[in-house]
């Protein structure tokens, strides 16, 4: 297509929108609602995943060895652990480090008292361990079983409850939002298709003349394709602008007014949210607009 034709098609596309303003606005409105919801759910899921990541990084699985294992045997167990797929990091905690940590936690570092009670004994002598963080906390159960199966492993301590709740909610929100967004996308597609059909009906005579004069398929279709793309683009940019302000306002308000929330969650900055959400929204909007009009023109504009 020539540049001059491109300009002509864009102009005609915009003209079509003006001609069917009411239907065009309905299409844009539905797209705005759809992509605004997409933005809301995306932000929720992203923040939940951020929280899950934080929990995941702080969640530690402790692996204890058989009593009396020497350094070489402990290292061998360590090597076996590292071979497992879901292992993020492995950190060796010797019996002395474990006891010092315990003293610090339980006796607030009161060395005199501890010495008076325990002397030089280390009650955790057989409690040297590997502290492991996992890549994917949802697969913790399987990994624990794999750890327990390693020769020389006496006990594996894990606490899965903390993250599982977040994972469950995040998955649920993900599925629900996907369902709602799909329904709304279908409605948007239908409305855009309707708008284009009306545009075609309004320009029926012009299209008929174009065809008889020798217009190529693409020349007849292009204005309608641009119309769909413009509707989709507008329908994706408006919710992005709204989302930008709403997200900043909401996260600011929650952090300021609800101490519980600010203690529990550290919100993802708006820039980070928009990094993927903005291109995704535009792509969805433009894509739905383009395919909505492509299907319609294919159906109604055969030369």
């Amino acid at each position, binding site marked *: *297509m*020539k540049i*001059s*034709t491109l300009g*002509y098609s864009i102009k005609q596309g915009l003209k079509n929108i003006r001609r069917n303003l009411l239907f065009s606005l309905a299409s844009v409105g539905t797209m705005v609602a759809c992509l605004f919801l997409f933005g809301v759910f995306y932000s929720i899921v992203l923040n939940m995943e951020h929280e899950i990541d934080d929990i995941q990084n702080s969640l530690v699985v402790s692996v204890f060895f058989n009593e009396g294992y020497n350094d070489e045997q402990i290292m061998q167990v360590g090597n076996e652990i590292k071979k497992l797929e879901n292992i993020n990091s492995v950190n060796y905690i010797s019996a002395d480090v474990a006891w010092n940590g315990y003293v610090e936690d339980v006796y607030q570092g009161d060395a005199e008292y501890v010495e008076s009670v325990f002397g030089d004994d280390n009650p955790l002598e057989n409690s040297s361990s590997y502290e492991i963080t996992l890549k994917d906390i949802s697969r913790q159960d399987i990994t624990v079983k794999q750890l327990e199966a390693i020769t020389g492993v006496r006990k594996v301590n894990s606490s899965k409850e903390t993250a599982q709740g977040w994972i469950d909610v995040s998955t649920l929100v993900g599925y629900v939002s996907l369902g709602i967004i799909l329904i709304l996308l279908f409605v948007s597609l239908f409305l855009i298709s309707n708008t284009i059909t009306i545009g075609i009906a309004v320009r029926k*005579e*012009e299209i*008929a*003349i*174009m*065809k*008889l*004069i*020798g*217009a*190529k*398929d693409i*020349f007849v279709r292009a204005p309608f394709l641009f119309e769909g793309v413009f509707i989709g683009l507008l329908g994706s940019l408006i919710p992005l602008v709204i989302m930008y302000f709403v997200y900043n306002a909401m996260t600011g308000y929650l952090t300021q007014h609800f101490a519980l929330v600010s203690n529990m969650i550290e919100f993802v900055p708006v820039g980070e949210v928009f990094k993927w959400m903005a291109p995704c929204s535009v792509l969805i909007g433009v894509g739905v607009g383009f395919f909505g009009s492509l299907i319609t023109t294919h159906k109604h504009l055969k*030369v």
Partner: protein
Amino acid sequence: MVVLDHVTMEYPTGTKALDNVSFRIKKGEFVFIVGSSGSGKTTLIKLLLKEIKPTDGEITVDDRVYSKMKRKEVPMLRRKIGVVFQNFRLLKDRTVFENVAFAQQVIEKPANEIRREVPGTLTMVGLADKYKQFPKELSGGEQQRVALARAIVNQPDIILADEPTGNLDPKNSLEIMTLLEEINKRGTTVVVVTHNKDIVNLMQKRVITLKKGKVISDEEKGGYKDED
């Protein structure tokens, strides 16, 4: 060259609009195709514009064999055929200039060529001073001239005029026919489908007469035949 070779067109309803029609129109010829309502004139135009496919037979225009043409080749064929309609079919929301320019925009001509060629064409049809006016501000004859300008602006090989004088008074009819004759003298093949007896008899051109889908006569310098 336009060749119809044993063309039959039968609609799904069972109506046989054309029945084994054959004729040849040489390059640069002026031909009237006449016949009353239901004789198959409209079907013939639709076939020549490749809006419909014949149920039997073959159509060839300038070495383009219709049955072998791909869909994407149809626009190129239509660019070689300028069409004029009885009801003008002008775009009401565009000026005279824009209506003629539209034919060039559609075939993706550059804007500077459009600006150069449209005024010349409007001068040829005698509407140079009315380029800013809208169709509703023009008389029937003037509207048909705009339609004619739109049909010739891309310099087609063939002009296909479907009842071009059907909505015009005798004076305007004659003016349009004179214009078509001028266009023909410049080398363009002109095919006029009409039932305007006076014009046909006056012009003394080749006349192909259709009746109930069949060619009943084909005469050089013929006149309008009463079918009964």
